[in-house]
């Protein structure tokens, strides 16, 4: 289980462009952090830093778990459930095939039918993903988060393309994740719909 996520003196540079610098935060298990900022302030870059895709220019990110502190990006990535800008969905696969693939990939077999029911896609199980609307694709992304079984959720604009019911579902899932002792870090311009700490990014 994870205990906390901390960042100290974190700086990010993309190409030659400094994105942000001197960033410090700490999120404890059971908490949510909403990352705010103008376009280009580095919200997505921060999520990619936490996920371990990017390396910080300076500073460090540490995921504290009950079995020790993890600073290595790839090792930290093994705790991450990811909902990015892109949907990560293959139009050639059915909804069920798509989710079963990720369940197997993340070692969470058997959780597919109840998860599809939870996100309201049970009737679309056999439907090829090319026929899904943007909102349904986002719901499939949420289903993928659930089956990942990961403790640290990183969400980039989680409410984009969702209707009111979808937004409520997303907030409900984030609340459940925090209640189960996980951490949610979400970059969004919208209100999260749950108690969350706030981090405002200013371009460096």
């Amino acid at each position, binding site marked *: 289980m994870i205990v906390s996520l901390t960042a100290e003196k974190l700086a990010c540079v993309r190409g030659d462009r400094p994105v942000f610098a001197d960033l410090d935060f700490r999120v404890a298990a059971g908490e949510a952090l909403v990352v705010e900022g103008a376009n280009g302030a580095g919200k997505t870059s921060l999520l990619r830093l936490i996920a371990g895709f990017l390396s910080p220019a300076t500073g460090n990110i540490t995921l504290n778990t009950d079995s020790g502190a993890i600073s290595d990006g790839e090792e930290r990535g093994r705790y991450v459930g990811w909902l990015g*800008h892109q949907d990560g969905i293959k139009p050639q696969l059915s909804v069920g095939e798509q989710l079963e693939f990720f369940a197997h990939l*993340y070692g969470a077999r058997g959780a597919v039918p109840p998860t599809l029911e939870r996100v309201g896609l049970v009737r679309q199980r056999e439907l090829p993903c090319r026929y899904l609307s943007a909102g349904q694709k986002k719901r499939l992304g949420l289903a993928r988060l659930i089956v990942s079984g990961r403790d640290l959720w990183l969400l980039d604009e989680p409410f984009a393309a969702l209707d009111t019911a979808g937004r409520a579902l997303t907030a409900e899932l984030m609340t459940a994740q925090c209640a189960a002792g996980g951490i949610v870090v979400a970059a969004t311009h919208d209100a999260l719909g749950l108690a969350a700490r706030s981090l405002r990014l200013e371009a460096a």
Partner: protein
Amino acid sequence: MSGPFASLLVRDLRLAARSGGSAALALAFFALVATLVPLGVGADLKLLSRIAGGVLWVGAVLAALLSLDRLYQGDFDDGSLDLIALSPLSLEQVALAKLLAHWFSTGLPLTLLSPLLALLFGLSAEGTWALFLSLLIGTPAVSAVGAIGASLTLSLKRGGLILPLIILPLLAPAVIFGAGAVTAALDHLPNGALGLLSAFSLAAVLLSPFAAAACVRLNLAG
């Protein structure tokens, strides 16, 4: 099949089968090349059998190239590669699964088709067997070297056009040894080329996942 590695392999094979028949396209290209060359050269079976190894090997390599740019590009463009990178698999294992999927969906079908195309060149039984064996041994190297090129050109615009320029020179040893194996069989000479091809293929398959994983890492950070 179960487990993360097998699930990725099966998914990639499923996508290859459903993505506009890429294996069928490669096979059609290979068959067209093998049909056009005898039409151009004429009905000189002696000459055709002498050039068969080289022509069919070049045809197989070019046909395999047709599906190489999709090895990583689709997953990179739609964000699937981010999700796969966060899975319990290392990027080296991911690269190996993708290499195998490409070989099963392209290299193996091309190899299985080759004895039929050898008939168009009037290849003897020994020559046909050498061609089949050399493609069976050598096409994994084509997928392996191709995987490095595909991962290297991931974030480049029109990377698919640059890809052949990068990998074709690296595949020259496979073509030389593969065609050489057919010629040696026709001349009833000891076939050292197959040994060299095996060594090249083994080295390519062993090294490719590490090189491709390093390239993917760079592109995910880009």
